[in-house]
């Protein structure tokens, strides 16, 4: 009885469904499946990836932009000049641009946006990106001048992430969280919490011919299997930023195409340098020798990744080759010898907090097995996210396995992570040589000179730093075969949606 009625009901459902599908008009709305709901859409207040994914480069833009090769390009600013001392930047805005609410984009809006990010009251998590901006002045309607307290080499990259919003929002903490207003190719239309966020084409967009789509709809679908069915059945045209495990399951599905690139984010094992045994640089080096990175990548990432040092190989202008790091050659005997030199009793008992994400759990398990063979005794602690973050913030760990987003400019990542007292230096790592290099490198106007400094930093950090960098994974997006023009970018931004279209 149950089975019979079930089938009948299914058939009824199918017929009902058929009626619904038929009359839908085919506007070019790109249906995207995403796993998590944003908590807010204010570009200066959000901290989580699900929010950035929806707004960055789609609704909001900065003075500059990062292209798919992770290099700086003009965006709202058509051009800029930098004074000889590196302390004054003058940006020339494109004429005739508009915000989604119809008001013109003028220098005063740029000034207000930068003040908004710097404001104590707003407490923007991005404040440090414009930390050295002392004054922002509107010279005329289309000219903005930034005066810096000191030369700041990464400024053009940092400023790409500072969205320009209308000046009226300068002191408004609430409105943009729910209803964003930007300059990008798509404007906000509707947000059904836990359901979807819909963007529509902005007709007044400054770049001619873009966007090609009539809109983008981010469907929030928490269950991975459901998202996969969504894209293989064609209800979704895209699953953005999926991991290797999901990508492998979608590989070869008819009408589904994978777009991929090497990403900036990386998996890591962090070590607490404020207490034994990892206060000893030799123990940190031993841990690096004990890790077999290619094996971890094969076992936990389905081979979709490459071993990397402190900087992603995707940052071609900056990253040092891993062959220059001796400890990246797997050598458990050497690891044990180093432990003996360090004078610790073997096996070295340590705990490892594990971020609750499947790929990280897998990595931690493989790493545990490898470390246990090389003089360590690792106890894994699978934690709930809240607990993990709390322990991370309080530096209450021996080691942890996790993943980090990565940055386009080395300074952003290095300074806050490895500088003594850096805001995310939870390892309590301190090294005067690294501090000196980082302090001077951010003031070097010459890229070649900067590169030299960061190469030194990478050499120091790779084997004896507080982080054992494990692997940079491939990041994928799955699209239907009729979706054209979308490109996967290493920083996971969906900025290329402006050039995406749906062909017949």
């Amino acid at each position: 009885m149950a089975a019979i009625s079930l089938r009948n009901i299914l058939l009824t459902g199918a017929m009902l469904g058929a009626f619904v599908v038929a009359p839908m008009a085919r506007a070019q709305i790109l249906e995207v499946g995403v796993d998590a709901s944003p908590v807010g859409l204010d570009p200066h207040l959000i901290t989580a990836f699900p929010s950035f994914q929806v707004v960055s480069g789609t609704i909001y833009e900065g003075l500059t932009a990062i292209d798919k090769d992770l290099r700086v390009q003009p965006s709202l600013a058509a051009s800029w000049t930098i004074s000889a001392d590196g302390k004054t930047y003058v940006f020339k805005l494109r004429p005739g641009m508009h915000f989604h609410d119809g008001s013109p984009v003028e220098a005063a809006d740029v000034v207000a946006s930068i003040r908004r990010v710097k404001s104590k009251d707003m407490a923007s998590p991005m404040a440090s990106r414009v930390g050295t901006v002392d004054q922002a002045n509107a010279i005329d309607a289309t000219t903005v001048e930034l005066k810096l307290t000191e030369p700041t080499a990464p400024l053009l990259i940092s400023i790409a992430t500072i969205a320009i919003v209308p000046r009226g929002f300068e002191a408004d903490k609430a409105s943009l969280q729910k209803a964003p207003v930007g300059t990008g190719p798509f404007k906000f239309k509707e947000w059904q919490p836990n359901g979807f966020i819909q963007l529509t084409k902005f007709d007044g967009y400054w770049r001619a011919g873009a966007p090609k789509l009539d809109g983008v709809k981010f469907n929030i679908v928490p269950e991975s299997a459901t998202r996969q069915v969504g894209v293989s059945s064609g209800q979704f045209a895209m699953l953005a930023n999926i991991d290797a495990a999901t990508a492998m399951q979608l590989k070869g599905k008819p009408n589904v195409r994978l777009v991929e690139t090497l990403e900036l984010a990386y998996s890591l094992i962090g070590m607490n340098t404020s207490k034994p045994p990892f206060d000893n640089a030799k123990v940190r080096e031993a841990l690096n020798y004990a890790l077999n990175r290619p094996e971890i990548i094969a076992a936990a990432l389905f081979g979709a990744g490459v071993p990397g040092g402190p900087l992603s190989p995707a940052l071609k202008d900056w990253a040092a080759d891993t062959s220059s790091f001796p400890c990246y050659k797997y050598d458990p005997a050497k690891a044990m010898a180093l432990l003996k030199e360090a004078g610790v009793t073997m096996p070295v008992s340590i705990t490892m907090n594990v971020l609750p994400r499947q790929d990280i759990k897998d990595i931690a398990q493989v790493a545990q097995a490898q470390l246990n063979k090389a003089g360590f005794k690792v106890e894994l602690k699978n934690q709930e996210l809240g607990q993990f973050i709390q322990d991370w913030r309080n530096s209450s760990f021996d080691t942890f396995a996790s993943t980090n987003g990565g940055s386009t400019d080395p300074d952003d990542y290095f300074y806050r992570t490895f500088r003594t007292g850096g805001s995310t230096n939870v390892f309590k790592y301190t090294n005067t040589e690294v501090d000196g290099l980082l302090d001077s490198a951010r003031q070097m106007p010459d890229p070649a000179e900067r590169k030299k400094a960061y190469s030194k930093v990478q050499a120091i950090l790779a084997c004896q730093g507080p982080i054992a960098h494990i692997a940079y994974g491939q990041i994928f997006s799955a699209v239907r075969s009729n979706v054209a023009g979308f490109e996967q970018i290493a920083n996971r931004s969906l900025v290329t949606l402006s050039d995406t279209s749906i062909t017949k």
Partner: protein
Amino acid sequence: MTRIVLARLVDLGFVLIGISALVFCMIRFIPGDAVAIMLGANTEVTPDRVAALRTQLGLDQPLLVQYGRWAWAALHGDLGTSLWTGRPVVAEIALHIWPTVQLTVMALGLGAGLSVPAGCMMARLHGGTADTLLRLGSVAGLTIPSFWLGIVMILALATLAPSLQLLGYVPFFDDPLGNIARLLLPAICLALPILANLSRLVRSALLESLGQDYIRTARAKGLGEARVLYRHALANAMIPFVTSLGIMTGYLLGGAIVVEQVFAIPGLGRLILGAISERNYPLLQAVILLVTAGFVVVNFAVDLLYRVIDPRLRG
């Protein structure tokens, strides 16, 4: 009658106070607080900012003070605002309640509605192969977890009828047919255990009453088999049926959390799950209070129904 209703309302008050205190403490015992999660793992956070945010949200006060403040405001009809969005909790709930209510009604309607004929059929075919098969089927219905069934149904439908757009949710008034079509699969998922459970209950209650003296009397009066079954035996089987129905309405919400997750329906289940992982204390407290109140009210309604069904209680 009035006295009973009043007594029940007093009970409800006690249950709500107890639950609110329990929930209040329990969610605060989960390690990792809202501020830590809100600021994320990788932002530029200073201890000052953490402290400021804690003060702003009132999380720096002792537990008892926090509970006192919250309970006082709640008694005045103010359930607080969501820690994350700053919207009133009531507004958040209003946004999410309809899909769940609709899902619950559809699942109950399907499950309970089909269980009576199914149970009667099983009782009539009692002892035969068909009865055995149906009973086996009902065991499957009871034991298959709804999240698994949901995924399998989605996969099956995607393979059999890939052109159907049945994921997600559209409000009923935007597109009534689309709304029902999209909720049908999840409703079936939730209804199956109810159907299995209730049809077994109807079957055994019917079989029991069919052995009673009054049934023999009815048959002796020369009534037709159908009239004996439906008018006499079934009426008496209704009492345990209604009790179970009341309890199941409460459990439906537990199932809805899972099923809403699988079918991407923006209902109370998703709201609860999100509130837990965000440590959104005011929101979580309010939703759990609401659900508890709903559970108690439904069971109260069941008690009242007894008086309609069972003439002995009408006195």
